[in-house]
């Protein structure tokens, strides 16, 4: 006879989020390394793609468990938005590295490294906020890193503007300009997506406060 469970176990979503946050930090650091030490690009981009797949799977896992879990620690739709928004950050990190490889970039431009630094900072802040969410007693331990992420996104905008200005001033080959326009765009979108994660986290803690 099939046994019914009256109280389904609460899945440990927070642990899953911690894992994803750690992969985000690893991926951003890896992108930073790739740009600062631009060698073995093929291998390095492949590793990043693997990380991206891992997070894709983890996100699917969360969504699947969401469908079978009876009790969730925070609203279902919040768990879903948090998982997908974190996934988006990694997608853009991976896409930036992939474009550099795809377009046969010889030497990354300076501002790419600056944007990667911002991404390392941003993903670390996401990790801090996500782990504070698991045992959140005071709302500020989640909100403060979110405020910092917002500031970083503005910084990202400024670096992008500087990058574009210099690109059009100094570069004379239109194809190089077109390639870098796209790479910078991807990097900046990754910082935007960090802000989206912060927005989701903010709304979760405010709602559950």
């Amino acid at each position, binding site marked *: 006879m099939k046994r019914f469970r009256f109280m389904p176990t609460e899945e440990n979503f927070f642990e899953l989020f911690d894992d994803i946050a750690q992969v985000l930090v690893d991926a951003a650091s890896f992108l930073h390394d790739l740009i600062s030490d631009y060698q073995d690009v093929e291998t390095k981009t492949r590793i990043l793609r693997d990380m991206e797949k891992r997070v894709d799977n983890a996100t699917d896992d969360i969504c699947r468990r969401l469908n079978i879990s009876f009790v969730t620690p925070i609203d279902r739709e919040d768990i879903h938005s948090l998982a997908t928004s974190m996934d988006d950050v990694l997608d853009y990190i991976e896409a930036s590295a992939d474009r550099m490889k795809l377009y046969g970039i010889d030497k990354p431009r300076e501002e790419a490294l600056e944007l990667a630094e911002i991404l390392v900072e941003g993903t670390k802040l996401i990790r801090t906020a996500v782990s504070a969410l698991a045992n959140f007693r005071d709302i500020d331990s989640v909100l403060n890193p979110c405020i910092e992420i917002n500031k970083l996104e503005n910084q990202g905008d400024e670096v992008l503007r500087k990058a574009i200005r210099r690109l059009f001033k100094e570069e004379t080959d239109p194809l190089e300009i077109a390639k870098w326009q796209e790479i910078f765009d991807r990097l900046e979108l990754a910082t935007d997506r960090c802000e989206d994660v912060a927005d989701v986290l903010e709304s979760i803690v*405010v709602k559950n406060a």
Partner: protein
Amino acid sequence: MIRLVPRQETFFELFEKQVKMVNHAAHALADLLVNFENVEDVALKIKATEHDADELVHEIMRKVNTTFVTPLDREDIHALTSALDDIIDFIEAAADRMVLYEIEEPSEAVIKLSSILAEATELTVKAVCGLRDMKQSPAIREACIAINRLENQGDQVNRAALAKLFQMRDKPIEALKWREIYDHIETAIDKCEDVADIIESTVLKNA
């Protein structure tokens, strides 16, 4: 009677404020491209409006998270304020690129696109203001249909402009600049359509 607690603005009032800022920015961009004077100053003003609109998004988000009974579904409120915010972000980016790329003269296509955008935000104001009284749903629907039509028009103008751009073989760098500017304005128009879609589904849900 004296109010001890200041009356809070309703969601509808906040949305109306937000969409009017969006409309204001769209008109500022369209006017800028027709007159093309003090480009930097106008771009800065648009940036300031975008910043004010950001504050409103935060206010709406705070309110949705602390209000027990909301007049529309929470996720609809969230989607609507985010989509409105996207419109103004792209307007700001387009204006900013005019400065950054040191554009000397606006193209015919950019003037056309920005006027389509201004018209679309005008209709977006109508649609958003209609939410207050959903019995006006025919008027809301009309505005949403018109926004859809403008979005198609925007697509066509953008495509024709791109085709022309990439025929100018002698000025590829200019083409890359304009492609990005067109792209921002066209995306802003797309986001008006997103707002229209959200509003239509909200009206259906609450009918």
